[in-house]
């Protein structure tokens, strides 16, 4: 019983330390994920469709023609 409690305490401690030491990284990761979700949902997915349409056609500017 005590051993289980100790294990729980240790894993919580590790988690706490992880959050404490990486708060900026976690914050930026959360913002990045939020941005991805906004992009996916924005204008009924038109943002990703715009990207896909550009990427599946040969980009004349990228290859130095148009």
């Amino acid at each position, binding site marked *: 019983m005590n051993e289980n409690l100790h294990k729980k305490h240790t894993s919580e401690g590790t988690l706490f330390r992880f959050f404490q030491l990486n708060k900026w990284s976690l914050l930026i990761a959360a913002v990045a*994920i*939020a941005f991805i979700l*906004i992009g996916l949902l*924005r204008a009924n997915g038109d943002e990703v469709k715009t990207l896909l349409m550009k*990427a*599946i056609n040969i*980009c004349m500017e990228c290859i*130095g*023609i148009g």
Partner: protein
Amino acid sequence: MDKIKTKKKISPNRRHLIQALGAAVFNGHFKGFISGSIYKGSLKSICVPVLNCYSCPGALGACPIGSLQAVAGSAKFNFSFYVFGLIALFGILAGRFFCGYLCPFGLLQDLLHKIPTPKIKVPAKLNRILSFGKYLMLIGVVMLLPLIVRNSLGMSDPFFCKYVCPAGTIGGGIPLVVLNPAMREAAGSLFVWKVTLAIAILVLSVFLYRVFCRYLCPLGAFYGILQPVSFYRFKINNKCIDCGKCARVCKMGVDPVKSPNSPECIRCRDCIHECPTGAIESCFGFKPSKETSEEESHG
């Protein structure tokens, strides 16, 4: 408690193998290189974490820098939350690890630099000034120009891809022009400019290590900004004897003891490989503990 890898030392040759595998995976549409056409599947809506032109006949995913400009240059949107979020996520996870381990254009420059010729060592001050070039590319050419310069339809050109990107010229432009007769007919002065610039960068890469990554790459700049706070970090432990071997071996001009998480470091791990005492360690998710870190005392 810290997840620190001290025993694994990845040799430069194994790194090149990983880079080659990365290049093959990101450009896995092999039949495109025969037919002179590009992959048109839904995977193209996902950005790869490296500079890999989506007009390359083999490309399976989208180039993040090309995508950022494509969406920002469209009539409907000024900014791509989706692409920006993806690049930020890649950057916060591993910083410039992608430059050192997965970028196909990085691999090409690495291999060219192996050609036995006298090498140029850029003075530290000049190197620092020139390295701002990539931030100018990112903020000026990739992000601001598409917002400022728009045509009557409210659209803009992907300026970086159009006038600068050598990865696009080598991965997309040259193969398509060689394989596709219609493209060959259409190639004009812009193509000549891009090929000239790409050749100049490749020739310089023989003498100067990763010249494009150091001074021009906007994706490297983005990852570099996030590198000091990314989950993947280097740390210096108390075994450091200040021999300076790590700084001497670093081809990117970084002193790992002074700045283990420098925005210029591409995580090639040459310093870890070279360190005689195993004082440089990599970790994921945990900052170095105060009693072992010399980051504060040196920098």
